């Protein structure tokens, strides 16, 4: 044996060098794959939240409140969930590269496949109404609510015929008193208004968050042609 081989084998036999137990390597692999699965599931959740927020946009009113090519789209992008999703997929990419065979695959393919998995899972979550429930829960957190209220502020645009706010009084079913998102109080004529888009026979009640679509008739007075209700994912 060579001198180097002798030195190494002496250290091995003397017990100065020992093998790291297998369980430590197995734990490391389990951790890598486990965190990969968790990141993809969370990514799928973020995707479902994005779907939910985009689907719940009143697309027909968007050109009215945000005129100009693309400007409305720019305003409705769910940046919060988009950022979360991007961070998770960056993590998935690097985590996957740490698996034994991860380096063999092209980065674009890894990102593409994980996005596809997240999209399919996200779609499933969307159909079982997971994002709706989650949105209700997250809205309890002030920072989340404030962030989304900022995003929803665009829907309060009485000058272009969209008024968003909370009903504070109902007068004989002919008019309501509405406090808009910037705390201005309006008397809204609802006599000829179509109530609720796709919600059937819903009756207006104090405390409802609504969008009134119509026009200003005088200072503090608005005539509604249509009343739309808010809800999970869309406060207004």
């Amino acid at each position, binding site marked *: 044996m060579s001198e180097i*081989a002798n030195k*190494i*084998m002496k250290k*091995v036999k003397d017990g100065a060098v020992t093998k*790291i*137990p297998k369980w430590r390597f197995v734990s490391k692999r389990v951790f890598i794959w486990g965190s990969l699965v968790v990141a993809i599931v969370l990514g799928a959740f973020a995707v479902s939240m994005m779907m939910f927020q985009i689907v719940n946009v009143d697309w027909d009113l968007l050109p009215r409140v945000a005129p100009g090519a693309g400007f409305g789209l720019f305003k409705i992008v769910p940046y919060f969930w988009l950022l979360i999703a991007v961070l998770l997929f960056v993590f998935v990419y690097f985590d996957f590269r740490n698996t*034994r065979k991860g380096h063999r*695959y092209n980065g674009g393919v890894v990102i593409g496949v994980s996005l596809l998995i997240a999209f399919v899972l996200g779609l499933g979550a969307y159909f079982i109404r997971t994002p709706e429930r989650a949105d209700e829960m997250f809205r309890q957190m002030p920072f989340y609510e404030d962030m989304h209220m900022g995003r929803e502020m665009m829907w309060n645009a009485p000058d272009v015929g969209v008024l968003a706010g909370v009903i504070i009084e109902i007068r004989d079913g002919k008019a309501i008193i509405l406090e808009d998102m910037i705390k201005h109080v309006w008397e809204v004529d609802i006599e000829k208004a179509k109530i609720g888009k796709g919600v059937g026979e819903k009756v207006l009640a104090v405390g409802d968050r609504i969008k009134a679509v119509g026009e200003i008739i005088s200072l503090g007075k608005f005539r509604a042609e249509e009343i739309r209700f808010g809800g999970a994912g869309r406060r207004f």
Partner: protein
Amino acid sequence: MKNLETRTDNEIVAIALNDADVFAVLVQRYEKKLFRYIFRISGFCRETIEDLLQEIFIKVYQNLNDFDDQFSFSSWIYRITHNVTVSHLRDGKKDMNVLSIEDEDSAKSLIELLPADVDLPKEFDRKNLSKELQKALMKIPDKYREVLVLFYIEGKSYKEISDILKRSINSVSVLINRAKMKLKPELEFLNR
């Protein structure tokens, strides 16, 4: 030990997991190969390489339980060697020597790097050419030198290089092409 000589690396690893003495077979099998490999990619002096070899074999022994026999042992040990050498290079411990590996195979492999239309000057005998080519290799960045050494001198396949450098096979192919481009200007001496 005698009948172990005919066994594959992976079989020896399996035995070494239960019998530490058998690890010596792997050390003997790879000692010279890895010595040359470190020398070619780093230009370190003999003493430094011997220290690195000890560090490498100790790491290999400590991590023997992590070896996955779906991979080749050779790629795995080259991967560890790559990591230890690169880390040593990064630490700035460049105890360099003038390269001079004089085995015929290296020269042959290095000559394959030359463009096909190069007409070698007659005064370049094989040994001198090998020396000059290795000097040229030392002038290009580490990552390019290493991939050329692995492909042309160590004779590794794209897949093996991909496992050693932890890069995709496509990226290995791109790296080899770029490395050849980087080396080209350093081979100007051939046209003199």
